[in-house]
């Protein structure tokens, strides 16, 4: 029911628009921030169409490269992710068509029934290269986030919930919580700090790499 990869109808994210503008002005780092922000959703979307996790990553890479090349076409009247979502779906479909033309490709890289629908593969079905370790690592991160969330003071939990899950703006959260916008900003930041403090050691341990 709740597809985490589907575009969410909400107000245009000004940070995304500004990052696009900076990229078009020649600042590649700005585009990298968009990549860091959306890479998980894009890879998850593609993994619903393609089983091979290496292929998923290749298609995700190609998606971002195509987006980068076509960035001047993004008009900013819709969410950046909505625009990116369509590029990802089209890129994945093109990859699948090319794979089908290639007689050497094994069917395991494709959908079991050959379908090309991003909604056709259940979300909890592992891709071909997912190992028990990677599944466990993902579970650890999810558990750490949820545990940290439960341990938050009520005002911080409420603020971050309204922001991250409900998608409210700072102004709306301030109205809902009857507090100044600055307080909202501070509460959301403190909530994130508390949660990411539990997550970041796991990430560094699992990946062995730093930004």
């Amino acid at each position, binding site marked *: 029911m709740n597809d985490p990869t589907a575009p969410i109808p909400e107000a245009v994210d000004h940070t995304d628009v500004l990052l696009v503008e900076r990229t078009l002005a020649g600042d590649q780092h*700005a585009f990298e921030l968009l990549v860091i922000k959306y890479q998980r959703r894009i890879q998850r979307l593609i993994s619903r169409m393609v089983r091979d996790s290496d292929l998923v990553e290749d298609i995700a890479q190609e998606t971002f490269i195509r987006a980068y090349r*076509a*960035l001047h076409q993004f008009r900013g009247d819709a969410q950046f992710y909505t625009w990116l979502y369509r590029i990802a779906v089209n890129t994945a479909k093109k990859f699948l068509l090319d794979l089908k033309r290639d007689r050497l490709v094994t069917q395991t890289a494709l959908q079991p029934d050959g379908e090309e629908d991003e909604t056709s593969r259940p979300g909890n079905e592992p891709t071909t290269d997912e190992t028990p370790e990677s599944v466990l690592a993902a579970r650890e991160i*999810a558990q750490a986030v949820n545990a940290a*969330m439960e341990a938050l003071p009520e005002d911080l939990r409420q603020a971050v919930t309204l922001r991250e899950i409900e998608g409210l703006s700072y102004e709306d959260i301030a109205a809902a919580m009857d507090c100044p*916008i600055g307080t909202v900003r501070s509460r959301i930041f403190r909530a*994130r700090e508390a949660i990411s403090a539990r997550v970041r050691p796991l990430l560094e341990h699992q*990946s062995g790499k*730093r930004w």
Partner: protein
Amino acid sequence: MTQDMSNTRELVSALADGQLRGEEFARALALIEHSEEARAHWHAYHLVGDVLRSDELAAGSARDVAFAARLRQRLQQEASMERPENAMNSVAFGADISRSEGQNRAEHPGANDASMRWKLVAGLASLATVMVVGWHLTSNDGKADGAPQLAQVAVPVQPVAVEATPAMIRDPRLDQLLAAHQQFGGTSALQMPAGFVRNATFERPAR
């Protein structure tokens, strides 16, 4: 409000929520650009948001750094070749990537591009083919006599007429008639022999 934003990580958090404009936005961007720590927070904050929305999005998050690093290399190659606003005319919504031929060749060179010898061999082979065909045609004076040709079935069987009139002059009206009724000729449009052959001959006035 500005005092609240003095904290670097809070600035990154506000940037993640689309709350910064102008100078603050530029400052936050510069921070992330130059600080590995700030970039790690940018990643962690978005990861936390993703996982809060769905546990599924925690999958593969340990590979996020490697993914971004790989893409960074590709983007640097892209940037060295072309700026994004000039790179493409149409791409996103299902259309093929319309990239310049030169760019495609630069990114995906042919397997034999590194060796000029193959290009030379291909050129010589083309030249040799043209020479062989030309020699073949000129040596036979433009007449192919080797392979059987379906179109030759009808015409050569006229020895009598040739014997009677050594200098045969074709009547132009006959040509017109044959041209107008080509479908009744000895071959069909598919160059297959018909079941019968129609011949046109000159006859002596005495007969």
